[in-house]
């Protein structure tokens, strides 16, 4: 007994042991710091913003008087842009992922090149996509500063992400399913259409929702292509001019009046609520996929 006690005493007073525990404590502290930052940030925004959110705020257009300003045009604009982006980006992204995963030829230089190119594109700053969209869609294609031009720009921006997440989902489908399907005489496309895509679907959906939430929060490329901040009518088609929630937040935050900054907090609450709904959907889908 005495011997055990002494040994423990020796280890505990050991410099190395103290250092080790100290380091563990510092590591824990840094994680706690990250979590604390998150909570503090969200709390500060919510406590200011939640009081600003009302039915009047949600159904009014922007105004010069902060108390009357609302986010109706911005919410509708965001929904339009994300909707069209989804319609264009999902089929293209999934088809590209199918090509890279299911039709890939081993050691093909072209497939390798496309793959490297996609990961490079994922690292290009969003504002550079804005410059591309400005030249390509707004000026060359003559779409003007419209919802369509914005959505197509967003499509190019999120496409690498959609492709990468869809590839991950396709990779997770067991090889045996494909082999069984080929064994029954199905062609490659039949195998993809009736076996691989259905089993990869929840994973693909999760990835797509996360990509679309990125599109909802993104504003720099849309500012570059010329989305405006003051819109006093509801967009009715893809050729209308538009604004989105993040741009509205940007505009209100950069004004000196306290009233507009509170309106910005309100708009942030609305934006985060939309993101939260989308992310919960993704989590539910992921849980379903695991069953």
């Amino acid at each position: 007994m005495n011997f055990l006690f002494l040994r423990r005493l020796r280890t505990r007073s050991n410099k190395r042991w103290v250092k080790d525990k100290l380091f563990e404590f510092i590591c824990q502290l840094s994680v706690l710091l990250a979590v604390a930052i998150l909570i503090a940030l969200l709390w500060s925004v919510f406590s200011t913003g939640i009081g600003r959110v009302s039915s009047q705020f949600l159904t009014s257009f922007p105004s010069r008087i902060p108390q009357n300003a609302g986010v109706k045009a911005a919410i509708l604009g965001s929904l339009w842009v994300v909707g069209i982006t989804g319609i264009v980006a999902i089929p293209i992204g999934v088809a590209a992922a199918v090509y890279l995963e299911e039709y890939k030829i081993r050691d093909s230089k072209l497939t390798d090149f496309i793959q490297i190119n996609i990961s490079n594109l994922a690292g290009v700053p969003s504002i550079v996509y804005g410059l591309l969209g400005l030249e390509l869609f707004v000026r060359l294609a003559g779409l003007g500063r419209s919802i369509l031009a914005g959505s197509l720009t967003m499509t190019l921006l999120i496409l690498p992400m959609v492709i990468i997440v869809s590839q991950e989902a396709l990779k997770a489908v067991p090889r045996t399913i494909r082999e069984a399907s080929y064994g029954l005489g199905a062609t490659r496309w039949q195998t993809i259409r009736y076996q691989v895509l259905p089993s990869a679907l929840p994973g693909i959906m999760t990835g797509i929702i996360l990509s679309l939430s990125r599109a909802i929060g993104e504003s720099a490329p849309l500012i570059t292509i010329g989305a405006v901040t003051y819109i006093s009518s509801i967009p009715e088609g893809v050729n209308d001019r538009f604004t989105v929630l993040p741009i509205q937040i940007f505009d209100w935050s950069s004004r000196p009046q306290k009233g507009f900054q509170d309106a910005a907090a309100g708009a942030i609450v609305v934006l985060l609520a939309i993101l939260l709904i989308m992310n919960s959907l993704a989590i539910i889908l992921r849980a379903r996929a695991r069953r």
Partner: protein
Amino acid sequence: MAISSKPGSSRPIDGVPTRLRSEKFIRFLCFACAAISILTTIGIVLVLSTEAMAFFVKSKVTPKEFFLGTDWSPTFNDPKFGIVPLVCGTAMITIGACVVAVPIGLLTAIFLSEYAHPTVRKIAKPVLELLAGIPTVVYGYIALVYLTPGLRTFIKDLQVFNALSGSIVVGIMILPLVSSLCEDAISAVPKGLREGGYGLGSTKLEVTGKIVLPSALSGIMAAVILAMSRAVGETMAVTLAAGQTPNVTADYRQSIQTMTSYIVQISKGDTPTGSIPFLTIFAVGATLFLITMGLNIVAIRIVRKYRKVYA
């Protein structure tokens, strides 16, 4: 063709050729979608290079003046086009963000992979992902409305727009990226190396510091470079927090302007298309693209190199 792609519906005699033809068509369609990514890259390079060229031709600025000039005032009556102040602003934000994100991110990664109980990991990882999911404009709002006034109680001569709070919020933004990439690098270190260390009687700190971290160093470096590239391209938070003053300085209390926030400033105003100030955003965009591309390529090289060691 549509019918023949349903299983069982293809007739034995003439079904096979149709099936093969439609198979080829679908394959081509998928290839075309994948090729859009290459077209995007070509588009970016073409747009940036032709418009940047147009800028150099129209403004008669030499590339030397552009890349080495220390005065940036494109909208003034006597315009000056030296990009150094914008690059300097971007560098300040990037360095500042890394000073915030790298130590916290690395320690978080070490904690999550070496120390944390699985339950703690399960909670901490989604929380970090949540940090990454918050839109950048929200960080800008927080910097401007909460962080700067807060910091001004400590630092009296802090300007309303300053590089300091811009750096801090960008640091918070890239923190999840740093920690998740570092964690990947750390978990790629084979377990046997750690066990060898423990077998020799080392403490966790000694194993982490002398075995795991040196082995994961290249991955960690790649993580830091990727995070830098993200910080370089960060736009909305910096525009809101750090201001619009092109400045060659190392003083974080001052207002600066980054390359990205210059592009936003010109895009927001009503600059006539085709004018010289309008063309500058493409020249600045091209510089930004080259810098981030360079950083990404270096990071990918490092990652490839270290994969070879353990794969």
